[in-house]
């Protein structure tokens, strides 16, 4: 899943992030320092701002004010660092095969030898035998495997997971948790939004609770981390 680290660890700094939709605040004065290699979980009720914060980190949404910075372990700017994004929507084309999807995104990202990279990732997510099948014929769990393979194409140093376990069965969640554990152990910076405790949340080294767009709790210690996750899922 992770192979040799072909990336440099990257941290993310959110400074006074506001996001407004009209008069409604989705995020209000969010400031967080995510260290390189950290595995942080954003917890909170629906509408608390988790997804918006992740999409701002992915540069898919522009913050109304404040700034997001990417820095390597030496504190140098690494704004161009590759980012992998996995959401509950699979972000792959149902009409294309698993292999065609990976080849498409590999070529768009300018990856050298895209066919080899796609094949290697399909092997890692256990879909090599179904490489020629259209994604529309896949189960939810298989689609999520394609999504993870797509997110790993460019050897990202930062991985963002927006409720990645939505719709997965227990076996799928176990597989996903193991994959994320390998990514975390390889030194990748991971930000996840989750509902409640699960095998996946157990991987977190830090938990941040959001409520109405603001950070209301932030901890790295075991007992507090547990309480944040259980409270948020309530």
């Amino acid at each position, binding site marked *: 899943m992770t192979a040799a680290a072909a990336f440099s660890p990257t941290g993310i700094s959110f400074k006074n992030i506001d996001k407004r939709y009209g008069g409604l605040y989705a995020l209000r004065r969010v400031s967080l320092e995510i260290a390189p290699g950290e595995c942080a979980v954003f917890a909170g009720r629906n509408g608390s701002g988790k997804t918006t914060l992740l999409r701002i980190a992915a540069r898919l949404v522009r913050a109304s004010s404040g700034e997001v910075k990417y820095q390597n372990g030496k504190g140098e700017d690494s704004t161009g660092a590759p980012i992998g*994004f996995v959401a509950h929507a699979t972000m792959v084309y149902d*009409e294309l095969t698993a292999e065609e999807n990976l080849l498409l995104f590999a070529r768009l990202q300018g990856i050298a030898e895209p066919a080899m990279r796609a094949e290697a990732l399909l092997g890692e997510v256990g879909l090599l035998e179904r490489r020629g099948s259209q994604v529309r014929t896949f189960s939810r769990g298989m689609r999520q495997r394609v999504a993870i393979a797509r997110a790993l194409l460019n050897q990202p140093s930062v991985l963002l997971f927006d409720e990645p376990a939505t719709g997965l069965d227990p076996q799928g969640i176990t597989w996903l948790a193991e994959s994320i554990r390998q990514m975390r152990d390889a030194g990748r910076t991971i930000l996840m939004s989750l509902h409640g405790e699960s095998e996946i949340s157990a991987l977190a080294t830090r938990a941040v609770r959001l409520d109405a767009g603001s950070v209301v709790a932030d901890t790295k210690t075991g007992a507090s981390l547990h309480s944040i996750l259980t409270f948020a899922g309530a």
Partner: protein
Amino acid sequence: MALLSNTAVLLGKELRTEFRSRELLTTTVVFILVVVVLFSFTFDPTSSESRRFGPGLLWLSFLFAASLMLQPCFLREQNNDTLSALRLSVSDPFAIFLAKLIANTVFLLLTEILMLPIFAVLYNVHVLPVLAQLVLVFLLGSLGVAIPGTAFSAISAQARMRELMLPLLLLPLLTPVLIASTEATAGLLDPNPELRGAWLGFLAGFDVVFLTALWLFGEYLLEE
């Protein structure tokens, strides 16, 4: 270079998915066929009137069909949030527009060329002697429809009442393209055919202006 290679990759994806499903091409061809046949019943197709009204009816049917064809252009990128994946992958977001507008132009042009013989038979006009010039008019006219159409498809995909939004935004804007394309086509279907350069120049100018605007401001249309 990255813009061109990204555009080529995305164009390949657009063509592959459409030729695999043939959803857009089938719907558009059937729509234009129905309109052209119904109009041919409303007046005597052997009269000289058909040469006067035929090009206008033809372009009107192309325009309505295009608004149907352009609707799913960005809408189907929302099903699995693939637009986000594209935005994370391309170095220049204009490549997304460029690939889509080229694909839309190709689909529209294919439909028009397929419908031309049927139009010629039903409206009793000779198209073979001016076929090359007609294809040029179709190309410039189709680009004129596809460029703003692709941009408005991106806008309407994020709006409420999106099915109504696209034709409401697009059709008034495309009135100059409708007039210029109709006039250029009418000139070619005349008993003494002539290529009306002024209308072709107008179409080319329209295409360049809107392509430039899309290049400059397209990125903002993709933002959430």
